[in-house]
């Protein structure tokens, strides 16, 4: 990956500079192909978040071509922007490049950010806002303005510090046209796939309505964020089965992720989904036939860039997540 140009420009010049950037084919360099499926706005409120966005977004654009706009809040009153192109080689002949625009804004200029971002979006392409860090409070107007054009709000509930964040997220999905997209939900995908696969054989499918209880062992420090993944899993199961279940979330070892799930049926029998850390897979085991049948799902990357890319590769909003979020919020509220 290379950054092939940098130019500090005022906002009006950004598009012209970008056009010039695409014309600038270096002699002997592979042919440039410009591509975009998304506008992705990464909103960083602190320097370390800005640094994180700058590290992560070029990697995301390798797998999902996009126009990236990184908004970095700063102290002071400045409002600057600059551009670059993130390129990667496809074969020996062609480079695929995506654009990156960075807007650096002093906190006192917050009100200018949303209109500026709106003017820089690629027309007629969906918009995702990746909100790094805490979700904004309801009374923060600039955040609402940022979401006006957003089709998707990307958050990471593993960073949430209380059920209030889940409630706020649920409220956004209900009261705006912006769909929530949670990186923790992407982390759950292999667990959901292994659980679903367990119940694919007709003999197991018949037992879905006989599930009585779920016990999850999850690692971490016991904070709300560490439990969010387990809450979402249980919320998903209850929402999809349309039934209440006895839930037990036990604390596992230090590593902050789910380690095992035991599904208990009315008749006392069980099915299980376990993480095999040695082989980096999750394994589901059911006992519907004479011979226990496993299903194995390879765990994919847990790195942020990979999680965001997987989220963006889904063209449609995730209604199942919304149902799971609703159920998880209720469950978290009941558990206190």
């Amino acid at each position, binding site marked *: 990956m290379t950054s092939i140009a940098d130019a500090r420009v005022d906002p009006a010049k950004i598009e012209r500079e970008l056009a010039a950037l695409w014309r600038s084919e270096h002699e002997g360099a592979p042919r440039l192909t410009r*591509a975009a499926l998304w506008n992705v706005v990464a909103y960083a409120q602190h320097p370390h978040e800005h640094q994180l966005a700058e590290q992560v977004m070029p990697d995301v654009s390798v797998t999902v071509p996009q126009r990236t706009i990184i908004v970095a809040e700063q102290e002071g009153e400045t409002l600057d922007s600059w551009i670059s192109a993130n390129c990667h080689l496809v074969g020996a002949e062609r480079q695929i490049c995506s654009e990156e625009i960075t807007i650096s804004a002093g906190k006192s200029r917050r009100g200018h950010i949303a209109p500026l971002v709106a003017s820089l979006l690629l027309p007629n392409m969906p918009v995702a806002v990746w909100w790094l860090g805490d979700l904004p409070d309801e009374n923060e107007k600039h955040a609402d303005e940022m979401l006006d054009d957003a089709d998707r709000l990307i958050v990471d509930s593993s960073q949430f510090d209380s059920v209030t964040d889940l409630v706020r997220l649920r409220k956004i999905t209900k009261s705006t046209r912006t769909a929530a997209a949670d990186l923790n939900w992407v982390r759950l995908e292999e667990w959901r796939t292994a659980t679903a696969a367990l119940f694919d*054989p007709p003999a197991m499918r018949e037992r879905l309505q006989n599930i009585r209880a779920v016990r999850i062992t999850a690692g971490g420090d016991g904070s709300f964020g560490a439990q969010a993944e387990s809450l979402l899993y249980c919320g998903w199961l209850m929402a999809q089965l349309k039934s209440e279940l006895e839930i037990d979330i036990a604390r596992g070892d230090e590593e902050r992720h789910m380690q095992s799930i035991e599904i208990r049926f009315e008749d006392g029998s069980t099915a299980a989904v376990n993480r095999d850390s040695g082989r980096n897979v999750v394994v589901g085991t059911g006992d519907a036939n004479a011979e226990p049948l496993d299903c194995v799902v390879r765990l994919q990357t847990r790195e942020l860039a990979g999680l965001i890319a997987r989220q963006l590769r889904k063209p449609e909003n995730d209604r199942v997540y919304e149902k799971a979020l609703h159920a998880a919020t209720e469950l978290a509220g009941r558990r206190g």
Partner: protein
Amino acid sequence: MTTTDAAPNPLREGLERERVPDPSVLVIFGASGDLTQRKLLPALYSLAHDGLLPPGQTIIGFARQEYNDESFRKAMREACDKHARTKPVDDAIWDVFARGLFYEQGDFGDASAYQRLRKRLEEFDATRGTGGRRLYYLAVPPQFFEPIADRLGDEKMVHSPDSGEPYTRVIIEKPFGHDLATALELNRVVVRAFSEAQVFRIDHYLGKETVQNLMTLRFANGLFEPFWNRQYIDHIQFTVAESIGVEKRGNYFEQSGIARDIIQNHMLQLVSLVAMEPPAAFDANAIRDEKVKVLRALRELRGHEENAVRGQYAAGSISGEEVPAYRQEENVDPQSRVETFAALRLFIDNWRWADVPFYVRAGKRLPKRVTEISIHFRPAPFALLKTLMRNPPTPNVLAIRIQPDEGIALKFDAKVPGPEMRTAPVTMDFRYETSFGGEPPEAYERLLLEAMEGDATLFARRDEIETAWAWLDPLLESWSQSGSGPEMYAAGTWGPEAADRLIEGDGRRWRRP
């Protein structure tokens, strides 16, 4: 048509694949052969890798070669190591996949082998939850279809779709006959044991993502379909070019030639997908009904031999290397008159396409491997800018690249900046790789999955096969009776000069893909 009786799995909602087939036993006849090792097992493994096979899915190879379960698994592991799309093979996935992999040794005509096979299948129903669901894959030459179908029938291993029993399906590979007579005979043999609804005829072109995208392009976009007719389209070109020669398939190719090998099946499938009317529904029979109407509307070639050209490659150069002539290839008659290139001008005599030429060409030892469809639009109706323009406008072309570099490009004219009215063709380019990344699944992965799910949309129906042969037969007969043979072309060129004359005589040119 799907035959899953149980309610859908609600936990699948929103996942990458919202539905997976119920576990079944897939019996591969001819499991020791090349197709199984190069395509089928790697495709099945890749499906397992992507989580698209249900727990309990069982595969049993059946062939004469001496294997047992363990040695078969070992051989298939080696095949997957070499040929699977998802490499390296994932040990954790393979271990579970291989537990469902078995082998039964037997002769295709030996009743006792089928009795053993039946017993094992019944065991799988109990131990692996396969529930009596059966798929028989005939990865064998057509002469074995009859003994296999007969023995399966004798051993009551085929359930009629009306019986209320779990499904039985059969998947067969091309060639679907050598001509109309043999195709009719083959179909007669197959439908003696299976009803047409149980037969899945594989044309692997239909499993390619870009071929499936033809329907998306036409019917999911409001832009194209209004222009998809004789009023706006001047002509359409189809090119299936291979840079390789016949390699080790000399024996086979001497019996088939390019017209039987490519045009009768792959190419006519492409023609019918491009030319068909919108189907009433997106289901197997509605789509295949429309495709077969196109084939029935093809203007007869009998008496119109000027619409066809054949060629055979002579020695030449490909990618900087000398390559031999067809007649010098292994297992090829040194006096062979078999065509390795064919170009045809087709007409579809219906309301939509009357008098629009469809130029198709397929050949071996052409400069590169490429499959492409190009739609050439009529010029603007009035040359408004003619007096001002320094160069004449070029017609718009929509090019659909099937392989490699799958994608779609639209060529149109734009004004060159400056004081004069000069135009230049420019291209709007869409490439799958650029936009979506990743590698699309192999055609066999998609087709095997569709057969397991009972969806026959991507498989050829009996009447398609027979109609295609009925149309092509007179040309093949005329070629075989002709005193002259195919025109020679040097390997590494785009075919014989007669192919250029075929299209240039109409005032058009082949597009260079």
